[in-house]
């Protein structure tokens, strides 16, 4: 598989479509662009020491691969080249820390109020920037003192939905577990409302942040562990749904394509992995979605994050949200919010990430909406940080509509 990625450079006809779509090279001259860094530079790379530092300015948003009409796996080529460079040069402590959200979260959860206060303290943040290289203004999420897993365990049987016709496995990811447990609860409620029994197996990080920071072998450890946790359910034919669009993409495709993982466990999990909106839109298509929605009178800008587009599943969130009476959804044309997982947290990249997202931020601000929607957690945090508008997962709007109906 990793051979195929490199070999795809042969398809490049130099049309430059990727360069015209790259949000990063449009925002900074520090990144020479996907065609240059991808199919062109790759021809000059070997196992020898990496020579092109500019490669590190690729945010990994993956838009280039999506728009390439010839099928060059540009972002994947870059990702692998960066991992090789990191392996040769060493990875800064900062990247090692931000690439392991579940580790830092486990440390912070018991002292969540304290940790949140600390991270909200501008003086401390300056210190963190100086010592760690995490930009003082970068959007960091707030820790919860009651992680989603804990909440699920403590949920009384009576709370659970009874008409358990079909089972579904919920892969919530670190974001829901440690930062947005309410989203997890709403996702479970929405699934239950549609007749599913929701199973929440123990789970850890999928390894995506490690992968995007070039820590491939560590990423493999995580993704293998997660795949083997989920594989028994997948083998039993249960769908696995996720509210984290980037983590589900990791399991669907990236771990295989970029890390070269080709275990049977991962393959079967990939087969059964669905974005939550994808699964619900599928129900809708079959006429099985519960459409008894209450009114939600709101105008909501919706941003489909790059990773969501990477799924190649269309815009299921839009298909669902348009069912809600009173809700006016304004699809955003701007490509990327800039954060690209952990990219925009870094001191040297924060400004670039903010510049990348500017068209999106301006468009959302101009709308004057009280709330915005987006499928990816880090993108939500970035957009909220830049615009001051709270950003929710589309599931939260569905949940509201269901609750309003009751």
């Amino acid at each position, binding site marked *: 598989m*990793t*051979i195929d990625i*490199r*070999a795809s*450079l*042969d*398809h*490049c*006809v*130099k*049309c430059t479509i990727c360069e015209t779509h790259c949000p990063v090279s449009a925002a900074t*001259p520090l990144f*020479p662009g996907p*065609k*240059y860094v991808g199919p*062109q*530079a*790759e*021809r*000059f*790379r*070997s*196992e*020898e*020491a*990496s*020579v*092109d*530092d*500019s490669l590190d300015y690729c945010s990994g948003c993956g838009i280039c691969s999506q728009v390439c009409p*010839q099928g060059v796996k540009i972002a994947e080529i870059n990702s692998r080249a960066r991992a090789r460079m990191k392996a040769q040069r060493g990875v800064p402590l900062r990247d090692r820390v931000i690439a392991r959200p579940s580790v830092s979260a486990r440390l912070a959860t018991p002292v969540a109020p304290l940790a949140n206060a600390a991270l909200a303290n501008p003086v401390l943040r300056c210190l963190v920037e100086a010592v760690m290289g995490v930009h003082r203004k970068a959007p960091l999420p707030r820790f919860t003192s009651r992680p989603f897993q804990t909440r699920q365990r403590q949920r009384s049987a009576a709370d659970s939905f009874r008409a358990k016709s079909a089972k579904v496995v919920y892969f919530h990811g670190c974001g829901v577990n440690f930062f947005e447990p309410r989203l997890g609860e709403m996702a479970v409620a929405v699934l239950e409302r549609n007749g599913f029994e929701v199973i929440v197996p123990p789970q850890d990080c999928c390894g995506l942040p490690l992968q995007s920071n070039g820590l491939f072998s560590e990423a493999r450890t995580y993704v293998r562990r997660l795949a083997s946790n989920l594989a028994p359910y997948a083998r039993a034919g249960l769908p696995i749904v996720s509210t984290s669009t980037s983590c589900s993409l990791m399991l669907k495709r990236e771990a295989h394509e970029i890390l070269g993982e080709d275990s049977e466990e991962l393959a079967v999990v990939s087969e059964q992995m669905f974005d939550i909106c994808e699964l619900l839109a599928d129900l809708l298509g079959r006429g099985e979605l519960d459409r008894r929605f209450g009114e939600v009178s709101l105008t909501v800008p919706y941003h489909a994050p790059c990773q969501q587009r990477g799924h190649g599943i269309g815009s299921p969130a839009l298909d669902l949200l348009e069912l809600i009476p009173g809700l006016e959804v304004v699809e955003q044309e701007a490509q990327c919010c800039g954060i690209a997982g952990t990219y925009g947290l870094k001191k040297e990249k924060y400004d670039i990430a903010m510049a990348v997202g500017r068209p999106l931020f301006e468009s959302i601000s101009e709308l004057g909406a009280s709330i915005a929607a987006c499928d990816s957690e880090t993108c939500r945090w970035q957009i909220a940080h830049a615009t001051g508008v709270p950003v929710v997962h589309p599931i939260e709007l569905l949940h509201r509509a269901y609750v309003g109906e009751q």
Partner: protein
Amino acid sequence: MKTIEAEVLVIGGGATGAGVLRDVCMRGYGGLLVERSDLATGTSGRFHGLLHSGGRYAVKDPSSAKECMDENRVLRRIAADCIEDTSGYFVTTEKDDPSYSDLFVDGCRRAGIPVEEISVSAALNAEPRLSPRISRVLQVPDAAIDAWKTVWGCVRSASDHGGRALPYHKVTGILREGDIVVGAVVEDRAGDEVRIRAGFTINASGAWAAQIAALAGCGGFTILPGRGIMIAMGHRLVDTVINRCQMPTDGDILVPIRTVSVIGTTDEEASDPDDLRILQDEVDRMLADGETLVPGFRQVRALRVWAGVRPLFKDEKAESSSTREVSRSHRLLDHHDRDGVEGFITITGGKFTTFRRMAQDSVDIMGAQLKDERACHTHEEALPDSEERTYYKLGSRLAAREERLHDEQIICECELIGRRALENAMQRRGSSDLDDIRRTLRLGMGPCQGGFCIYRSAGILHSLQRIDAASATASLRDFLQERWKGLHPILYGDGLRQARLDDWIFQGLLNVEQLQS
């Protein structure tokens, strides 16, 4: 008619001629080289790119094997910047007789070629695209060598020692006074004749050597051109030279050189050294052979196919002891002994790898004839840019580009040539021929085959040299014509798609066919 004087005239601007020029100049003679086209456009610019370790000849031709290894060592010392130290594997594929590999190891040991067995898994680890069906891997010090850099390096070194090379000067006659050759008549690019008077003339015209010798009235031998094709694939499939471990045959070597991988070669008897046709059947065979070494080879983009001719020497005077078999692989003809003609020798055959040795042998013979024996120093002094003795690296252009990312326009995106390098080369070459610039910089030699850089370059050429638009157009058109020759036999897959896009650019957008020139 203009007349130029030279102590020693060298005919042929391939590796051998350039090596001879350098050698004579380093021994203190005034040397002048003439080449009918640009330097290294004969066999030397059309070869496979392999600096032989000698492994290929270890069983079949032990003396050539030893000679290659000796020269391999010398060139690594004096021409490091022209060489990429790729190393080489001899692999036993499922199609090869496994017993050959033991003979191979013996042969290498006898020829002094360091050979080391490595495990199949280690080889596959280092070269993941290599066929997993190989059963044995032997490693030898093969390397990749850049023809143009080497030939130009020799000429630059020669000019440091007072020598000179005249490209685009074609020999049309040899001047004789009685039994003595005293120079040649050449025709320059404009078609004007120039007389060159020389004290000694060395014919280093490779596959054309019999033609030149005939002009001097020296016959008795023929050169049968053996044509071989090579196909450059779009990127590096391997970083090590891969040879099939078997008796040398067709399509058994894959050479990673610069940004491409070259599969070769064939051997078809031709009647004329200028017959460079490419047969579809040869292309098919090469791709099939590539598949044996690298599964999926046919899916890789083929960039370009070309042919070169090896001089197959046939001596009608074979019985006479006068043909000096200095080596089994190259021929040095002392026309004084053979034909009673003084002041004239012919050197032909051999390999690119052994060009320096061939030059040394030639100039030794010249010294003997002139009774003026001077010592050779070509193995001691490094070529220009190779003084540091560091090998060329694949990533060096990328590294250089990284330095200038923000302040220099890039012209050739595939080969990463910036505007400054291009302008410098154009000034230095003083040529309005874009194909000359191509050879100097590898301009337009990447995947798009000039599709995006050649119109840019034509514009820059126009603005720099102040040639008129019509000449710039002509140069552009010539370049495209030349590229097309190497493209049309391999138009399929990604290459075809690129060719269509390039065609739209040049015909649809720029209308080059109708432009005035």
